[in-house]
């Protein structure tokens, strides 16, 4: 399984990667929506974990463009956002997001939400 983490904060990208360290998956990263679209096209991830407020291109714009692209629109997206207001949630729900997680978050919550969408497998124990 391949996970694309799109967040301008290196801290969040590290936390996301750390959350899945015991699972058999690979990671790719982007620091804004523009880079995220390019990474999605190049890497064809199984899921995208997407921040909302980012410079250059925000997460809502990236999600809109992703859903307009026939080659990318099937990739499931979880929004990872510090903004949980009703209007914000309704806006991203209309764009076809699969789920959202509000910061602050626990790594176990993120794993639970991702595992509902893709088939996460634990790494085999080292021999």
């Amino acid at each position, binding site marked *: 399984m391949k996970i694309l983490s799109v967040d*301008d904060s290196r*801290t969040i990208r590290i936390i996301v990667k750390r959350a899945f360290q015991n699972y058999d998956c690979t990671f790719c990263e982007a620091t804004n929506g523009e880079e995220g679209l390019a990474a999605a096209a190049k890497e064809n991830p199984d899921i995208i974990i997407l921040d909302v*407020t980012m410079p250059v291109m925000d997460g809502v714009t990236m999600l809109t463009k992703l859903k307009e692209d026939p080659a990318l629109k099937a990739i499931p997206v979880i929004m990872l956002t*510090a903004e949980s*207001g*009703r209007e*914000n949630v309704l806006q991203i729900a209309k764009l076809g997001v699969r789920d959202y997680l509000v910061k*602050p978050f626990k790594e176990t919550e993120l794993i639970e939400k991702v595992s509902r969408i893709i088939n996460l497998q634990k790494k085999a124990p080292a021999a």
Partner: protein
Amino acid sequence: MNQTLDLSGIRNFMKGHLTEVFTTMLSQDAVLTPEQDVPKITDRVSGSVGFGGDDINGAVYLHMSASFASRAASVMLGLPAEEPPGDAEVNDVVGEVSNMLAGGLKSWLCDTGAPCAISTPGIIRGASFQIEPMPGVEQTILVFQCNSDFVVVEVHVKFNNR
């Protein structure tokens, strides 16, 4: 709706929200102190995030000592004790925590009838600086104690059309 769009409502929200952010992301208890004066924090790291909409605009500032910020970064990034974080890593962590504080406030403001947007975070470092509100801007300061350290949240708000 029992939420009030005024400075005391914002203060009440931030009190609970900072505690939640610190507990969840830093495994750190934060207790609001009755202090009204901002404690002197030398060698300070401050995060700032602006917010703005038709009815309200302002900024959230999060102040902490450089040593506390470094420990917070180590916890959030999962760094071993013998590998202290660099300034860029500390800045990113303080910026992200500030973003979480402001994002929560933005959500509260939106749900309370004052939709707004937030900026990406900025960082100020220094030994001696003070942030003064502009005329017409209201200010609330919350001082939290985290073990032997103080963390200060400062919210500057201008209510438009009032």
